[in-house]
């Protein structure tokens, strides 16, 4: 008997997460090679940031920098929200019933299987700032780049948590996956501050923006790149972390609820 009853839970969860991430990365590998990523996807992302920075340049002093940073960081969030669609890829493999019937939590697998978006998003966002920043006169130091990288990872993770939540909602409504992720990202563009300061959209929308990932992380990044990193920046990062944790908790709750409900009512989720 090779099963080990004393296998520590943390180690087991880490292994499941790792293998789920590997399975997701293998799926992602069919979308891009490193060449098509670099010459296609990355260039397209740079062009998008450059487009907005150029508009900012026309708007007035400082606007190019504002829009460049905002859109570069928004790209990182966009990749996190892509998890909405890729979470449903598990359904296409026909593995969900087997995952549910296994001794491990299927939610753990869903958390791990879209992690490949995180390095992709951070690379796009960081690359955009590093390559296009000097064009907009953005002062970059080694310390600010290091802090920027940490905060971009944070934004990627928190947005990923939102993507997981949305993905758990549309897990069986495959037709809606791209609609929902695009709608969510559009809302984030409006209320989280990448294009206009969040107080410019009114108190209600601004308040809603403060419940979403990206808002606090982006403010923290703006402070870092303005050379004003300090306790306030750390506080913003803390809020960003808290909000991401809340979205992750919501995603896990929805997945658990769906699993229980599906077991009871025989919904399509686990019967494919």
């Amino acid at each position, binding site marked *: *008997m*090779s*099963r*080990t009853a004393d*296998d520590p839970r943390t*180690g*087991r969860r880490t*292994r*499941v997460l*790792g*293998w*789920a991430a*590997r*399975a997701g990365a*293998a*799926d992602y*590998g*069919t979308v891009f090679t490193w060449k098509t990523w670099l010459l296609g996807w990355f260039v397209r992302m740079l062009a998008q940031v450059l487009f907005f920075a150029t508009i900012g340049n026309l708007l007035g002093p400082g606007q190019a920098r504002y829009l460049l940073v905002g859109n570069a960081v928004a790209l990182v969030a966009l990749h996190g929200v892509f998890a909405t669609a890729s979470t449903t890829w598990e359904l296409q*493999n*026909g*593995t969900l*019933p*087997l*995952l*549910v*019937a*296994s*001794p*491990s939590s299927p939610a753990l*697998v869903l958390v791990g299987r879209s992690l490949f978006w995180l390095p992709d998003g951070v690379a796009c966002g960081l690359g955009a700032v590093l390559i296009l920043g000097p064009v907009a006169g953005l002062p970059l130091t080694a310390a600010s780049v290091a802090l920027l990288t940490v905060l971009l990872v944070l934004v990627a993770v928190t947005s990923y948590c939102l993507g997981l939540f949305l993905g758990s909602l549309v897990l069986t409504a495959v037709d809606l996956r791209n609609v929902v992720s695009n709608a969510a990202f559009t809302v984030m563009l409006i209320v989280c501050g990448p294009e206009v300061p969040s107080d410019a959209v009114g108190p209600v929308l601004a308040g809603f923006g403060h419940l979403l990932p990206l808002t606090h992380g982006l403010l923290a990044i703006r402070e870092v790149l303005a050379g004003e990193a300090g306790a306030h920046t750390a506080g913003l990062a803390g809020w960003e972390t808290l909000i991401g944790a809340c979205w992750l908790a919501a995603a896990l709750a929805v997945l658990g609820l769906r699993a229980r409900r*599906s*077991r*009871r*009512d*025989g919904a399509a989720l*686990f*019967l*494919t």
Partner: protein
Amino acid sequence: MTDSRNGTGGLTRPGQGEPAVETRGLRREYRTRRGPAVVALDDVSVTVEQGEVHGLLGPNGAGKSTLMKILSTVLLPTSGNGRVLGHDLATEHRRIRPLLGIVFGGERGLYPRLTARQNLRYWAALYGLTTRNAVARTDALLDELGLAERADDRVETFSVGMRQRLHLARGIIGDPRVLLLDEPTNGLDPLAARQLRELILRLAGEGRTVLLATHDLAEAEALCDRVTMINHGRVVAAEAPRTLARLVPRQERVRIRAEEPLLDLVRALPGTLGTEPADDGTTVVTVDSKEAVGRVLAFVVERGVTEVRTELPGLEEVYLQLVHRGETRSVVNR
């Protein structure tokens, strides 16, 4: 075992030398948005002893897969109850899951872009194996199932037969005590199906309980100690294949190798119902009683026929009688 006064709905409690699988009065309805609920299972009681290979036979839509889903803990019954190795299906699914291995037929259920080895390592992690044990068990299974040479190839490059063997390996990676196989030879060519059946027998020989859902009667006859026939969600019969064969009408059969003039004489014997040529050149004579069997045997042996044997109806005939002709007489062995 079926004493309903024990407070478990007639089921055995854990630790009583419990059956591997035991259900009593299982019913499963699916609600539809419009129209009445669809009954997929109705009053299904099945007992599978430990170490048994048990067939679940029935046409498409009979309810086999629904029963498999309930037993694999991904679906709850609407009413009734069931246990796997003494653990309640409704409330103890976390205890049951490590004890089960599940294999579905068809293409789905593997990660096509991972290699065979990676797939098994992944499922080993899901079943809680440590890295060291997972490596050892993966290597052993790849070797045992004849996949070692392709272990590091992506599953998407595998033939259907290889995928199905990998499915089986995945199903037993956690060393389950009960193996649920839902039409595992579905889509396989005859040779691959035969290899897979040999593997299933080997697994059963290791002491595992196997519950095999299939509509392949030859498969059930070859593999199963007992079969349960399901039709329209209800159990029609549950017995050993040979015992079931005795339950169909009193038709007995004599297989002989003889030429036409003699066959004409055989047809004229009292009690002979008919003859039918078989693929191997012999002729199957159907008679209505044991006396008629003796009469035919004596008649042909006297006339120098040396290739002659009696046989019971195959499972296919039982199946046709009990399922397709809608006979629902009570032949369930309780």
